[in-house]
C-alpha cells in the first residue's frame, strides 16, 4: 500500500517539477545575457519624412534604439559631451557609436 502511494507521489511530482523548470527557463531575464542586440543602423538610413511617429511599431523601434537615435539627433556639439560620458564608462570605442 505504501509503495503504491509513493508511486503516485513520484508520478505526480515529476511532471510538476518538469513544468516548473520549463516555466522558470523562460523568464525573460534569463534570456538577457545571451540576447541579440537590435540592429538600429537600419533606422539611420530611413527617410524621416516617411516615418509615421504615431505608429506604435515606429514608436517601439525608437524606444528600442533611443540611445543611438539620441546621439544622431544631438549633433556634433553634444557628441563631444556624449563621448566624454562614454569615456567615463569605458565604452567610447564601441562600434555602434562610430558607425556611419
Amino acid at each position, binding site marked *: 500500500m505504501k509503495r503504491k502511494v509513493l508511486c503516485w507521489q513520484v508520478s505526480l511530482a515529476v511532471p510538476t517539477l518538469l513544468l516548473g523548470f520549463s516555466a522558470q527557463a523562460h523568464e525573460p531575464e534569463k534570456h538577457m545575457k545571451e540576447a541579440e542586440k537590435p540592429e538600429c543602423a*537600419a533606422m539611420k538610413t530611413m527617410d524621416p519624412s516617411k516615418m509615421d511617429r504615431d505608429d506604435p*511599431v515606429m514608436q517601439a523601434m525608437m524606444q528600442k534604439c*533611443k540611445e543611438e537615435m539620441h546621439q544622431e539627433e544631438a549633433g556634433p556639439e553634444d557628441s563631444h559631451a556624449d563621448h566624454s560620458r562614454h569615456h567615463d564608462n569605458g565604452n567610447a570605442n564601441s562600434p555602434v557609436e562610430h558607425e556611419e
Partner: protein
Amino acid sequence: MPSTKFLSCIKCLAVASGVAVAAGVAFIYSGFYPVGADDRHTALTFWALETLRERSIARASAGIEVPKNLSTPERLLAGGADYNDMCVSCHLKPGKTESDFALGLYPAPPNLTQAAPGHGDPEAQSRHRFWTIKHGIKASGMPAWGAGHDDERIWNMVAFLRRLPDLSPGQYQVLTARGSTDSDHH
C-alpha cells in the same frame, strides 16, 4: 402490433450500434490507422477536425475581454521578444518562408507573417489567438503556454501578432531583440 414492430426496431438499432462500436474498437486495436505526420488526412477527416477546432475555440473564447491598450509600443516590444523565443520556429518571421518545424508538422502551423484569411473581426481574432496561445491545441504540436506565462504576457504576444504581417525583416529584428543598445552602459 405496432409496439412489437417498434421493439424489434429498437433491438435492431441496439445490435447495429453494438456492432459499430465493436468494429471501431477492433480498428483501434488493429494498428491499421496511419498516425505518421507525413501521411495526410482525407479531405473529410481534415474538414471534420478543422471545423471541430475552429468551432471549439470560437465557443471557448467568446467571453474573453480584449484589453483596450493592445497597440502600445511596450506591448509590441514585450510580445515580440517572446514570439521570437517561443513561436518563430513554427510560425516563421518576415523574410523566412519555411523551417524544419513548419515543413514537418501536420497539420502545418499557420504562417503568422501573413494576414490570416477568414478573420475579419480583429477583436474575435485576438480572442481566438489569446485562447490558442494560453490553452494550446491537442495533438497538433501547439503547446499551452498558459502553464508558465500569465495573461498579460500572452496579450503582449497577441498585440505583436496583430502587427507581424506589416513588419519588414529589419523592423522584426529590432522589435524582437531582447538586448538593448544601451545594455553595454549599465
